[in-house]
């Protein structure tokens, strides 16, 4: 079925903004510079010789363009977003109201300290909550995201090891880890080695002990891990690492499962990032930015990066220089900065708003409900889908593609068919430790009604695949503005920038 315009209903075929170009069209009226003759340019050689190449549009055109693009987005505000290891939870509107308070929204990081004491207090209070929830004595608030936090934690570990004259060379990472873990360790100059898993989906403690030696700087664990399982030998693991003089990094991406129940500091963790955009309900994905503060143990506290807020003599103070840090605390050895300013302040406001409005009892209930919801999915789906490891699980449940064996339907086909049914797919093909992974994390946001609808769809699709009706899977998605994209072509021949005359090729991947 086709229309004259290519549009379907009020779903419009949106052109690229460059294709909407009307040369000379502008949203603002400025005096024509060519008519200003008595002003000498001070740009010298830096003056532009050629047009800048931006498209000309009116303000309503620009507003409509971006609004229409946003309408093609899927968001947590639009429905269940079951991406595993992502914790796509509801962002309470109260957070947004707080972030828009003029005293918090209309300030600048270079304002005199005396004029932003309230902002410093807010950062200090956010830090206090995060340290209390994790049972850790220190925190670096500035990292901008989870992977940035990993790098921050590893740099602190390296700084602490170098300070004792023993830099070491190896970092051990479980095979089910997020890909960012080995990447961060590699970026920090370490040689990465993989710790094997047991058939229970957890770190193989004996294998880990066999790999330890006095050249191991750290291990990086995720707890609960990416199979949705609690690493129940974590205390033995951290003790074994500490015994050889190493340190323990924990990937905090899955902290939502244990907030208010487990304090990582009690498990022997030395550094852990907190994805405020996952666990603490701040916007996530395209709606970010994220924030990845890193809590630090006693062993690493002195090696936190700059800047940080402290309780000074005349109210709150911001320590921005190594000299000031040393003056404030004689053992402070900051290794520098991770970020230009103090961190993602607007995200701190939202996270604190969430924590204060939930209270410690509410946070504990949220993590409990998140675990309950994942186990509900496991209980409702385990007879038809193949669960990878026996439950109970934590905040997410891992299935693999054994239930699709001999159906000719792949995990990817299954995910695309879910889109046709109005559900955003779960995480696919991760973690790599099982074949054709389907990793589902409903979060505490969803009520039983939504989960039941989801379960009905998954069950119906699984039965359809097993009955040999593969056509709808291979053709999926059928009802989206674009059909299945050619991922292979996109990866082999990526077209990353628009250039005149190449526009049609951008659509050729369909």
């Amino acid at each position, binding site marked *: 079925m086709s229309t004259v315009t290519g549009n379907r209903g009020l779903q419009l075929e949106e052109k690229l903004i460059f294709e909407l170009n009307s040369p000379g069209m502008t949203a603002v009226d400025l005096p024509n510079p060519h008519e200003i003759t008595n002003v000498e340019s001070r740009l010298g050689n830096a003056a532009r010789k050629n047009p800048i190449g931006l498209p000309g549009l009116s303000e309503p055109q620009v507003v409509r363009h971006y609004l229409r693009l946003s309408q093609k987005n899927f968001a947590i505000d639009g429905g269940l977003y079951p991406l595993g290891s992502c914790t796509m939870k509801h962002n309470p509107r109260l957070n947004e109201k707080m972030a828009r308070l003029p005293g918090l929204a209309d300030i600048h990081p270079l304002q005199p300290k005396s004029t932003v004491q309230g902002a410093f207090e807010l950062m200090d209070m956010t830090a206090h909550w995060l340290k209390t929830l994790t049972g850790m004595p220190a925190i670096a608030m500035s990292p901008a995201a989870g992977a940035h936090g990993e790098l921050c934690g590893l740099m602190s570990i390296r700084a602490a090891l170098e300070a004792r004259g023993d830099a070491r060379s190896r970092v051990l990472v479980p095979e089910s880890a997020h*890909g960012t873990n080995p990447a961060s360790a590699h970026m920090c100059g370490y040689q990465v080695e993989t710790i094997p898993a047991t058939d229970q989906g957890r770190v193989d403690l004996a294998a880990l002990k066999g790999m330890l030696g006095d050249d191991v700087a750290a291990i990086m664990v995720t707890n609960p891990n990416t199979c949705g399982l609690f690493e129940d030998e974590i205390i033995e693991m951290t003790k074994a690492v500490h015994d050889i003089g190493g340190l323990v990094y924990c990937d905090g991406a899955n902290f939502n499962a244990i907030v208010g129940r487990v304090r990582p500091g009690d498990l022997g963790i030395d550094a852990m990032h907190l994805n405020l955009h996952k666990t603490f309900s701040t916007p996530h994905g395209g709606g970010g930015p994220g924030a990845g503060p890193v809590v630090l143990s006693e062993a690493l506290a002195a090696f936190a990066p700059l800047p940080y807020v402290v309780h000074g003599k005349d109210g709150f103070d911001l320590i921005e220089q190594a000299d000031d840090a040393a003056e404030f605390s004689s053992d402070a050895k900051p290794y520098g900065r991770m970020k230009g300013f103090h961190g993602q302040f607007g995200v701190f406001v939202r996270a604190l708003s969430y924590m204060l409005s939930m209270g410690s009892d509410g946070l504990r209930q949220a993590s409990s409900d998140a675990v309950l919801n994942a186990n509900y999915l496991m209980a409702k789906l385990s007879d038809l889908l193949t669960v990878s490891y026996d439950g109970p699980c934590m905040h997410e449940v891992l299935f693999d593609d054994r239930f699709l064996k001999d159906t000719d339907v792949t995990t990817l086909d299954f995910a695309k068919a879910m889109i046709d049914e109005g559900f955003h797919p779960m995480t696919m*093909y991760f973690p*790599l430790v099982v074949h054709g992974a389907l990793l589902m994390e409903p979060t505490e946001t969803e009520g039983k009604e939504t989960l039941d609808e989801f379960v009905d769809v998954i069950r119906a699709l699984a039965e359809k695949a097993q009955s040999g009706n593969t056509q709808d899977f291979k053709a999926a998605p059928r009802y989206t503005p674009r059909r299945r994209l050619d*991922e*292979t072509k996109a*990866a*082999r021949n990526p077209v990353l920038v628009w250039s005149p005359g190449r526009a049609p090729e951008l659509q050729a991947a369909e």
Partner: protein
Amino acid sequence: MATVKFTEEHEWISMDGDVGTVGISDYAQGQLGDVVYVEVREAGASFNKGEEAAVVESVKAASEVYAPVDGEIVEANKALEDNPAAVNTDAEGDGWFYKIKVTNVSDLDGLMDEAAYKAYVAELD
């Protein structure tokens, strides 16, 4: 006829004198799906058995390719830079990754021959 040996990590090595040509098995490419990028260490790089010699990236995942034996790379397959698809279409031929000068040819004795590898793969499915 060159001897072809296989590892449990799904690499193959085909010997010609003391130089072996290394790639990933047809089974491995099938598991990876469409290969979109291959990175091989430069000629002159040397490593021990089990160390990372190359990286292969598919639409599903990025994986390391390990050295099946101790040795030194004498040639990397530059053609894969522009045509990673060769790994899918001809994994055990044009899709080779690198040629390695093997330190101890006797190290190959510990690897599987084609029949043993086929039996090993059949066990995995």
